[in-house]
């Protein structure tokens, strides 16, 4: 039954036709654009690169979770509220209650991942769309965050986290920097910019690679590996592609979905912890709208909103596009409203291209 109507596939086409093509094109477009209009503004100097790569890494951390969950066929709209909740939790435990920071962080992770599991459990047991269930948690968690913060400190911003975390072993894993020796060495050789005056004279402006970026890279590699190389990855695709067909052949769909909700919550907590450790404070309004930014990154990255199709690398590139465009605003000094137009245009173009490619790959009509 070989089909003579099936055209031979050229190598070029095979390289081109991949789920991430939209995101790859978008990334190239964005970089070319900013190199042209903001190339001499310091955006591509070490400090500028650190600036937008940290922002992109933040997006990427939550995008990886959102991506795997979306491919498994579900949404989590409570990610943003979860970020605020986790941050306040860490601050209350470590600053107000005086617990060691590492215990505070671990407790926050345990609570967030449990809430993720509860989200998943409710979606599975009630059969309601995850959109609704997690929308409820968007409000519940945000409300709890503000209430807890006011209850314990009469404020919605809790500072002093950095001081409390001094000497802690776990805090630097989220808020620290690595390769500081290498950067100092590069600074000493005059390869990168160093401070010329003040108390930090001689130290490089960019001290090292923030752990946030390491977390982002780690999660991207883990997510991509899990999705494309493992048995569990196949279950993620199957659960989102057709949950019933998958469960008929023995895929533990419910377990897969609940685990993905937990993973999304884990990613939100990584984001929150890194942010709290970096700023040295937690605020009840942190993470606002992050759930949508994560979902937009994932969709730019080529994932299908209805599940069963997508790419972690694509989502990471979507996050990169988002970060570069957002920070590019400041560097280019141009009218910021125009950049929203730019971002919207990229979103539309990437999604149109993604839809076209997906139809070619999957034979959808």
């Amino acid at each position: 039954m070989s089909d003579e109507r099936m055209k031979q596939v050229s190598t070029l086409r095979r390289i081109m036709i991949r789920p991430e093509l939209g995101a790859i094109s978008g990334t190239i477009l964005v970089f070319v654009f900013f190199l042209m209009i903001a190339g001499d503004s310091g955006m591509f100097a070490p400090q500028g690169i650190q600036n937008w790569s940290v922002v992109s890494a933040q997006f990427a951390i939550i995008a990886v979770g959102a991506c795997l969950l979306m491919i498994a066929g579900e949404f989590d709209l409570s990610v943003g509220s979860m970020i605020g909740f986790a941050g306040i939790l860490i601050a209350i435990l470590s600053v107000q209650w005086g617990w060691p920071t590492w215990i505070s962080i671990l407790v926050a992770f345990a609570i967030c991942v449990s809430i993720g599991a509860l989200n998943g459990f409710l979606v599975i047991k009630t059969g309601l769309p995850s959109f609704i269930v997690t929308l409820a948690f968007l409000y519940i968690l945000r409300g709890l965050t503000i209430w807890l913060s006011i209850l314990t400190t009469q404020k919605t911003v809790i500072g002093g986290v950095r001081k409390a975390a001094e000497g802690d072993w776990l805090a630097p894993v989220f808020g620290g920097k690595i390769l500081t020796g290498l950067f100092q060495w590069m600074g000493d050789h005059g390869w990168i910019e160093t401070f010329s005056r003040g108390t930090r004279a001689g130290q490089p402006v960019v001290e090292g690679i923030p752990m946030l970026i390491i977390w982002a890279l780690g999660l991207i590699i883990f997510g991509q590996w899990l999705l494309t190389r493992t048995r569990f990855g196949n279950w993620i695709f199957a659960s989102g592609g057709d949950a019933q067909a998958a469960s008929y052949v023995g895929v533990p769909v419910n377990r897969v979905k609940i685990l993905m909700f937990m993973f999304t919550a884990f990613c939100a907590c990584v984001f929150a912890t890194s942010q709290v450790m970096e700023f040295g404070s937690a605020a009840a309004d942190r993470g606002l709208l992050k759930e949508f930014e994560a979902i937009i990154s994932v969709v730019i990255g080529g994932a299908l909103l209805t599940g069963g199709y997508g790419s972690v690398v694509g989502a990471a590139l979507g996050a990169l596009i988002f970060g570069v465009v957002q920070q590019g605003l400041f560097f280019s000094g141009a009218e910021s409203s125009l950049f929203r137009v730019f971002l919207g245009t990229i979103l539309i173009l990437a999604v149109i291209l993604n839809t076209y490619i997906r139809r070619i790959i999957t034979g959808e009509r």
Partner: protein
Amino acid sequence: MTQPIIEMKDIEKHFGPVIALGGVSFDVCPGEVHCLLGDNGAGKSTFIKTMSGVHKPTSGTILFEGREMHFDSPRDAMAAGIATVYQDLAMIPLMSVTRNFWMGNEPVRKIGPFRMMDFARANRVTMEEMAKMGINLREPNQAVGTLSGGERQTVAIARAVYFGAKVLILDEPTSALGVRQTSNVLATIDKVRKGGIAVVFITHNVRHALAVGDRFTVLNRGKTLGTARRGEITPEELQDLMAGGQELAQLESSLGGTV
């Protein structure tokens, strides 16, 4: 006649007040195609879902290889060797042929502490098994959505056979297909039977049933109207049995169930 591999005796299934199956008996032997015919709503789907572990029967016994079995989930039934190919749920179009073929049975290779899916083996076996069924794939990672309806059914059948199905239940595999694709699927069913597998072929098309069936059971309103062997029944009789049963049922209900 050989020993039936699976025997369903007086199966009843109630959904609340609705009696979906009112005592259906059915069996199938290795290397035999047993067609289950009936119109929409006759209880065919409920019956095969009972056989494949999706539903638990309200009463009645299931004998598998002579022993009484209770399937708690489709996974149990599959482990015993009962595979079901559902008409529209057979395949996930967004996923590649290989990913679909191995779904739920992925081969795993260990590299150090990491357990990965063994794609090299999975792709090779998929290509081989598909070739056996007469389908030459362009590449194993092409999406199932690019295949025709008949080819999708064939992938699902090949998958069931490869994973050691002793009983293969086909839920209306030909109902949405064109003429050419239908003959391909029927030819595949014949290949499977020759391999000594018991096939339960659900259809409401008498011609498709007669093309490959060894025995024919007609189901109507949750009850069997009888079983006939190949050669004992003409297409017209079989058609009448399906349609006549329907008439009888209508008559019965119009008389208030007193007949």
